[in-house]
């Protein structure tokens, strides 16, 4: 038996930390870390609801696995874009105006 208030509070904190990371960082890789935190908050919500519901399709757990896969694909492409940005501009500071 578990009270769902604790996992849901953790979901809220992770999403809030991720939003802060996206807004308050200027290094592109650190912004990506914030995006990862938001994705993990969504994942924790999926797993929590999937663990307590009687679903024969196990939707919560399966969708959590799918989100992890999509996040892996996303971070691969995003880091390739960041490296291309670094090669063409010499910096990955997101507050610099585009050249």
């Amino acid at each position: 038996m578990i009270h769902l208030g604790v996992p849901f509070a953790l979901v809220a904190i992770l999403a809030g930390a991720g939003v802060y990371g996206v807004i308050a960082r200027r290094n592109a890789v650190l912004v990506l870390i914030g995006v990862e935190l938001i994705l993990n908050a969504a994942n924790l919500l999926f797993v929590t609801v999937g663990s307590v519901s009687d679903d024969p399709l196990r939707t919560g757990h399966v969708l959590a696995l799918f989100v992890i896969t999509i996040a892996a694909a996303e971070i691969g492409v995003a880091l390739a874009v960041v490296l291309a940005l670094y090669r063409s501009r010499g910096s990955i500071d997101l507050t610099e105006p585009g050249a």
Partner: protein
Amino acid sequence: MTTLDVMFTAIGLVTAASAVLAVTTRQLVHAALWLVVTLGTLSGCYLVLGAELVALVQLLVYVGAVVVLVLFALMLTRAPMGRSAAHSTSVPQRVAGAVVAAGTTALLGGVLVPALGGQAVRVHEGRTEGVATALFGSWVWPFELLSLLLLVALVAAFAVSRMPVPDERAGRA
């Protein structure tokens, strides 16, 4: 408070603290290392919730692969070592970010916790076999589509990283 409540709270406190540190620390590499702590303890949270398969995939994919990619990206972009305030935006933007983050937290927590967090519910343990059956049964076509997505992402990352450098940059250097 049940046993699972206590276990989840203990692990979740570490997760929340390390997540906040990952977005506020002034050292670049420390941010990636705090992300390791966050993702690892989150996999412990999944174990408490009885989702063994998701916990193991989280460890393998996130802690094993994604964080290594992030660390490589930090090294390849010549990240400055040591403490530096240059990774964060200006103070007004950080204050605005904190306000938006607090609003997000309050909104999500305010909706989810009162709606579903009240009474104790039973956690279904040992569902790995059911997850595997569903994954390769009803969910097999989305699953195969995801493997195609991974292939496309691999080719796209390769293509983007091999793009030619613009001439003006070469002229400047």
